[in-house]
């Protein structure tokens, strides 16, 4: 497809998601208390969007991923949080 066709097909959807992202960050600003590790990871991943290189979706996913290689000792929860919590 041409860029023009892709814009015709996806611009309004992407625009809507972009505004949702902005509103989410405004909402966080208005919130009280400390944010957890997810906000830092989110802001880090956002930087990938503005880089003029391909595979942005892959890089965002990698940015939010656990890059360790050994199995953990025991699963203490079944859920995933969406961002890897790195022990500082």
């Amino acid at each position, binding site marked *: 497809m041409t860029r023009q066709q892709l814009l015709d097909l996806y611009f309004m959807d992407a625009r809507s998601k972009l505004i949702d992202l902005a509103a989410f960050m405004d909402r966080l600003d208005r919130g009280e208390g400390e944010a957890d590790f997810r906000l830092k990871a989110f802001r880090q991943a956002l930087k990938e969007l503005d880089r003029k290189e391909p595979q942005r979706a892959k890089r965002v996913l990698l940015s939010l991923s656990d890059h360790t290689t050994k199995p953990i000792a*025991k699963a203490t929860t079944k859920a995933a949080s969406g961002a890897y919590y790195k022990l500082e």
Partner: protein
Amino acid sequence: MRYIESHGHMVSRVTDDYVDMAMAGCQAVCEPAFWAGFDRSSVQGFYDYFCQLTEHEPKRAAKFGLRHFTWLCINPKESEDMKLADEVLAIIPKFLDRPTVLGIGEIGLNKNSRNELKVLERHIDLAARHDQLILVHTPHLEDKLKGTRLIIDALKGDKRIQRERVIIDHVEEHTVKLVLDAGFWAGMTLYPESKCSPARAIDIVEVYGAERIWMNSACDWGVSVPLAVPKTALEMRKRGHSVEAIDKLVYQNPLKFMRQCPKFDLV
């Protein structure tokens, strides 16, 4: 349009979903065993679940002209309890000869723990000993990359496993190449909030090609869309993909993989 729902947890869905799927062109639905949303208290719970998957659910689907097939295992979310896992692994062979069982699945990892990995290796051994196809679940979100790597290593570590007889599901942009380059099949799951959106799934096909890859809804008791596959087919039409290309992805590819099990018959 015809399609195969290659991964749907129909025990969690209402009968109206079968009606909608049949009307949308679904020819067959394949249901891997999975976590019920709560931990089962004993092996007897799994026995009953396997009976539901192999006896009751095919009859429910048949009322709407749909073939129903299944995969059996203990899900990685319940694999931390090794005693229970071993008990469940011991009853699975009793079900493998049933006419709608395609193989072992969806096995894999959830939080990438040592016990999950041990249970995965035991499932792989079970599949190898009984010459079964394998369907693998990869972990969610931040755990997917690491889990996919561990799963690929575990599968490669068993030399009896033929890679073309294994599908590694729930791939995304950061894992699809790992899976395809290793010679396995790759599944893309179409979810509203996680895994792949229809647009992203089509991006992946456009970038990595349509060989050894399929799409599924993985509809279950959570936020999911039973008609996600035909909706994505519609999106492919909007993007200019041919009818033949769509048919390959949503019908021919799952047919090609699952026909490796002689029990997979759409007649």
